[in-house]
């Protein structure tokens, strides 16, 4: 049975975009390396589903946040390398700020500094 793409992406949408953009901030990379990088830097906590990664990459490309070029990879075969565009850099900043605010807010609610009895 097929799961509609929307329902699967919903969980990660936005978050996955942010992760991809952040990963590309350090330099261009191809899809497989991006997935690996996310997994590694999150200490294996986040596993990027390949089924979501490529649609996300193509969506970001269509929005102009990342651009792609074909270049030879380490293995010698050519691979599609994605890099951040200026527009993407701006988007990354905005998303990052938003995420940090959200995360701080969540942190404040879950672990208040000076808890008062209700």
């Amino acid at each position, binding site marked *: 049975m097929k799961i509609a793409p929307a329902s699967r992406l919903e969980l990660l949408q936005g978050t996955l975009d942010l992760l991809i953009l952040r990963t590309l901030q350090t330099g261009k990379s191809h899809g497989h390396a991006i997935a690996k990088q996310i997994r590694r830097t999150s200490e294996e906590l986040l596993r990027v589903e390949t*089924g979501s990664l490529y649609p996300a990459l*193509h969506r970001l490309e269509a929005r102009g946040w990342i651009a792609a070029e074909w270049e030879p*990879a380490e293995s010698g075969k*050519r691979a599609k390398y994605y890099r951040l565009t200026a527009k993407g850099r701006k988007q990354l900043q905005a998303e990052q700020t938003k995420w940090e605010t959200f995360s701080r807010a969540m942190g404040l609610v879950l672990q208040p500094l000076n808890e008062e009895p209700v």
Partner: protein
Amino acid sequence: MSWIPHKPGWIAGRSRKDAELEEEIRFHLEEEARQAASGGLTAEQAQWAARRELGNVALVMEDTRAAWGWTPLERLWQDVRYALRMLRRNPGFAAAAVLSLALGIGANTAIFSLLNAVVLRMLPVAEARQLVQFTNTIPLWETGSAYARNLFGYPQLERFQARATTLAGIVGGTGLGRLNVGFHGNSALADGDACTGNFFSVLGLTPQYGRFFRPEEDRADASVAVLADSYWRSRFGANPAIVGGAITIDRIPFTVVGIAPRDFAGLSVGSGPDVWVPLHALDRLQPGGKRWTEPFLSWMWMAGRLRAGVARERAQAEMDVLRRQFLTEQLAVSAIGGMANVRHFVRDGHLVLRPAATGVASGLRERYAFPLQLLMWVAGTVLLIACANLANLLLARASQRRREIAVRMAIGASRGRLVRQLLTESLVLAALGGALAVPLAWWGGSLMVRMISAGETPAPVAVDPDWRVLAFTAAIALLTGILFGLAPALRATSVDPAPAMKEGTHRAGRRSHTMDRLLVVVQVALSVVLISGAGLFVRTLHKLWTVDMGYHRENVLLFSVDAKLAGYPTDRAGAVYRQILDKLQTLPGVQSASASVVRPQDDEFRLEDRVDQVDGRTLPEPDAIHVAWNSTSPGYFSTVMTPLVAGRDFAPRDRVSAPPVVIVNQSLARRAFPNANPLGHQLGEATVIGMVKDARYGGAREGPAPVLYYPLFQHGPEQEFGWGFVSFELRYGARSNLLDEARRAVASVDPNLPVFRARTLVEQAEQALLTERLLATLSSFFGALAVVLACVGLYGLMACAVARRSGEIGIRLALGARPGHIVRMVLGETLSLTLAGIAAGIPLALWSARFAKSVLFGIGPTDPFAIAGAVVILIGVAAVAAYVPARRALSIDPGVAVRCE
């Protein structure tokens, strides 16, 4: 493959992108495998691990493509290509489906294009929605029900034009009938209209060439004319140089000043004039009378344009008040202001403004609007049957494609996606059918226009498909595509992939056969409606044709002559007609000849009057006898063979100077002189000298009604031959060249006298039944179509059933079942389906026949013969449809069948 269109450019660019995506994913898999292999797995294990990690490759690619954003269009393209390929693989099915759809959609489009041309199409004038037609509604003396008259007197027009504040312009006009238009010495007949000088400017029209009338040109010596586009093309070869040129109309010189726009054919559908002249040209074309001054002489139609933003009701209220004020003033002034019916008209009548965006009142529209609506329903039913038929074919195909569908679902296609693809197949079929339907409808539409054209030339009704017709075709094609495609698509995709794939045979669930059967029963039921409907119309036509008209149709030639067209003033017209009649009587082969104002079953004339003086006694207004009247020459009754029951026919001695005489028919005699011999009694000023048998005056549908006959050569001059032309009747023994001889006889009196409306009385009678003939012919055609489709439907169902049950039949045969038994089984099933359809169809037919009641004659909507005919035909059809499958069932080889099972 060549007929499947190639990919357009943007799709070609797309395939490069597709290849790149594939490469990208492949690279991902290889990279994953490479890294897994370095972790210690074998190459094969690594590959499988990579595949597992990625999941469904096709799905990932599909999802990624979705991110590109333009997939719906691409999917549609894919689906269309796939659909075309599927159709190509089943050319027989495709041809049958497209053809039946083309016929069904084409029938609907053809009727609709006619309905559009006759009823729906807006006038090609500026802001047509602002146009209104002036109408008087007057309660009838007899019944009290209001009836409408569209004619007004000229003084009213002047008053309205001077006082109206809610209308931006008021125009008026009248038909001139036949005109003799001369150009460079050649003369030919044409239809003319006279209209007020502001006619074209109020309509907001722009001439193709030249100009339209100037307001100051609408005066007694008016000598300008505007030509209609069609006339300009046919008579003057579309030569623009004719503008400014001289023509003669009834031998009076006129100058052509302009050519009307191409699509403008007057305000009334179906009676587009060839030439327009200013209203006051009437003074030269039809001199005399009190038409400009008498307010109660109604002879011109009027229309107006609402001021922007003014509601019709408001303008109507203002005009009604203006009408009442003006007419009340005129009662005191007019010579006929004292008559009771004139007072009734002023006091109880009202003025109504009717929307005229689609044209002013039209005889053609009045006559055909309802029959065309009926035919629209009939054609719609045919399309429904075609849909049921196709749905059935698709259902049968759906069970054949179960495996294909199951496989596609198993590899990840969603049900919605498959339904969409199957629906696309139906829509492609519908689109092909619709495309083929347009030329078919065009052809059918012009054929129908010829069928409903009474005169020598086709009625000026443009049935070319306009945007409205094309939109209609597209809409019903789309609708039919969904209608016949949805159920099969839903059923085809409601399979559980695993068992369906295992089964291997084309077996569908039990419930599905119920749907097949239901569809066939629906087809039969709708066929009952169509066939019995056709039966009603055919029987109506037959009854109308065989009704006793009171005269004999065979061997009578009719033609008309108008002395006015050759420039004769009215006081000399009578002599011309008498001379012609004398010549005709001496023609070889002519048994008798006569002349009359109204011919039997006349399609242009009807003269009515009220008789309110009987034997010098004045009848009170409500008791006045409503009569139809005619003026006839001596010999009229013997020529058309209407028996003289008492007294004598008119004779040459009944001339102007002689005492006035009349002949009555039996109905009038009964009304005016109950239980008395009418001979010698007085009607008005005249003495009754004869009584004839009732003959139907207006047509077969009219019952016998009072008719009054005047002697043509006594009464005509008195009326100044105001009705225009005269019809001649010739009863002949042998007809060869009679018309040519008659033409020569007329020419020998004056070569400038045109002969027109030449046809036999049989033809004249046939023309009077054009509507009925159209209904009978088309409904029979549609009924036959329904029968064929029902036959195909039944046959298809039974053929499928026999194929499906070949195992069972084989076993039965092997076990010793007699052939007769097998045949009975197949026949019985077909028959029971048919009977179920008939049982459902009869009440439906009886119910829908009520709507056609007004066009029936001589039979009721529940005519048992029509229903019985439909039942017999459909049972016959069932037998035909079952024959081949039954034969096939018998030829099943038990051994083969059992082994296959």
